[in-house]
């Protein structure tokens, strides 16, 4: 059993397998990005693809994020299905104009005559002792743009399921990959079906408190839930997984049971995803709330260099304390 787990795929393996399968079954799929070909990606997510599918379908791009996305939009409009990699989410801002101006708008602008069925993958988030600009969580930028879907897998199986789903989607989907989880969890992915985009998943059931999270922080939320359980506090834990369009229904349903909602994510709190989740739940279940919705996030600061990055990230301890406060509130 333990041995099997040791050999089970990491998130990197899982995405890699999904890409292989997809490219194998659909020859319109192309992969593009900096170092995605010969090098197999700086995180090895695209390893082996160039060998198998050739350099025309696995494109080692020049160093230019706006170019990569603009070029991909063009390919998507002309019969291909590009899966573009931003080497780190911190460099995707260079592509924001192309994403906002065209990827998100082409279907609308042309009243459906053209569409941009493409996937943008990007590793994001802190916790891997990386250099500056390699640790941010700016999913809110993309989630605020109409016409885009944003998904964030938390485990290898979900990464596998969401990568397949993103590729099948007829619209642009951004897959933000929590690189802190890239190699820390192994999980069986055999027989996993493509995900349904736009569905929040309940991953733990309790009755006293609802914790909502996603990405790497989901695991801290789950750890906190265990710790709370030891104290007799039972929590629902919900993985929103699709940031946009946000599925608030299961969260609202849970809150109607628990009356308490704690949101955990690693973006800076201000104008981040937690506020939106809270707003949506409030719109649906205000009268069930026993106490204010709370959020445990990063801080409104730049992610410190790695010696102090854990001081930035929500700790299990902070989650547990907040949860206890809410229960006694």
């Amino acid at each position, binding site marked *: 059993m333990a041995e099997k787990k040791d050999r089970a795929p990491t998130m990197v393996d899982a995405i890699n397998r999904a890409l292989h399968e997809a490219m194998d079954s659909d020859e319109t799929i*192309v992969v593009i990005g900096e170092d995605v070909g010969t090098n197999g990606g700086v995180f090895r997510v695209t390893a082996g693809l160039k060998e198998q599918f050739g350099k025309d379908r696995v494109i080692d791009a020049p160093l230019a994020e706006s*170019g990569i996305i603009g*070029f991909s939009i063009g390919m*998507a409009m002309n*019969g291909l299905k590009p899966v573009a990699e931003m080497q780190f989410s911190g460099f995707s801002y260079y592509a924001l104009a192309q994403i906002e101006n065209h990827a998100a708008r082409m279907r*609308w602008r042309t009243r*459906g005559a053209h569409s941009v069925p493409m996937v943008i993958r990007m590793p994001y988030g802190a916790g891997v002792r990386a250099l500056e600009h390699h640790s941010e969580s700016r999913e809110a930028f993309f989630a605020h743009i109409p016409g885009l879907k944003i998904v964030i897998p938390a485990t290898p199986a979900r990464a596998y399921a969401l990568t397949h789903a993103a590729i099948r989607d007829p619209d642009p989907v951004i897959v933000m990959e929590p690189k802190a989880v890239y190699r820390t969890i192994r999980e069986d992915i055999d027989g996993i079906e493509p995900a349904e985009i736009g569905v929040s998943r309940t991953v733990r059931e309790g009755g006293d408190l609802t914790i909502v999270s996603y990405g790497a922080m989901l695991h801290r939320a789950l750890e906190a839930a265990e710790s709370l359980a030891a104290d007799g506090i039972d929590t629902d834990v919900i993985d929103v997984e699709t940031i946009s*369009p946000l599925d608030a229904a299961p969260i609202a349903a849970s809150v109607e049971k628990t009356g308490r909602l704690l949101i955990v994510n690693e973006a800076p709190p201000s104008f981040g995803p937690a506020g939106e989740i809270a707003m949506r739940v409030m719109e649906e279940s205000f009268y069930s709330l026993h106490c204010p919705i709370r959020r445990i996030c990063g801080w409104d600061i730049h992610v410190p260099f790695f010696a102090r990055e854990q001081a930035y990230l929500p700790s299990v301890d902070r989650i547990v304390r907040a949860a206890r406060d809410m229960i006694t509130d």
Partner: protein
Amino acid sequence: MTGHLEYPEPSTKPHRVLDANGNLVDDQTSIDDDVGFLEEAFKAMLRARRFDERLLKLQRQGAIGTFAPIKGQEAAQVGAASTLRDDDWFVPSFREKAAMLLLGVEMADIFLTAAGWNEGLAGKKGDRRLPETVPVSSQLPIAAGIAYAARLRGEDTVAMVFFGDGATSSGDFHEAMNFASVLKAPVVFVCQNNGWAISTPRSAQTASSTIAQKAHAYGMPSAQVDGNDVLAVRQVVEEAVERARTKGLPSMVEALTYRMEVHTTADDPSRYRDDDEIEAWRARDPITRVETFLRSRSQIDDAMVEVLEEQIQDEIDRAWAATKTRIAELEEQSDEVIFDHIFEDLTPPLKRQRKDFLKTGRGANDG
């Protein structure tokens, strides 16, 4: 310890067939085979000019919104676009109405868009005449990607992308040129250097001697052409299209032309440029030049031009009438269509919002 740094002046000389007076620049050349083209081009340019004038009039009357006139740039657009096949891709900036008309975009659709209705851009599925691009130069990497995809899918189609002199300053121009060249995409980059980017003259935009030479930074061949000489433009662009179609490789053409009108209808050029300059360019009007030539060859005369003018006015009148009818219809429809085409399928939040919208109405008090 000096003498290492160098800036070699490019030797480029703009290609020209007819001079500003409609005479052959080089009387050794024969353009007898091109007279048919010149006649068609004359008609297309005149049609575009008149349409543009009507747009301007309608804008001044408040019937339509802001738009970017093409006056003076008809030859650059018609010459370039005339080289495209039906299955080639046309990727415009926001000032290509002459090219659009030539390529079959309906006047009524252009009117409708200018009147502020999204329906004016509703293309047919897979239509390869793309709508205008507003963010300057953002269409360039897209054109490169379109072209690459064509090649990967085994088509021999090309993508032709239009942009201005101002666009060449922006990062997307650079990235697109580089991608096209190094990834071998059959794109034809057509720069209409009309001397101005709103109020910024070409000299304040970049210090290179020519725009054409910028292509060399990507190992890409290029040429300068008199952009007010429709035949010269066609010849140079044809060569670029051939290179794209047969070799799958990109090139860039700089068409030297001039924007004779306002930048857009929100602009007042008297703030930044002299009438003298406009006058000088009026003498190089791309339409007059062909007209003079055709008259000199007795291909056209007053009577023919008169008929042509009437036909054009009639076409424009009908298109505008159709547009007004269409607008009246659209005004009857529910504005709930604003939720259409954001995604292939409406997402749950959008469904909820549309319901909300229908409940609360449009807020006529603000409309």
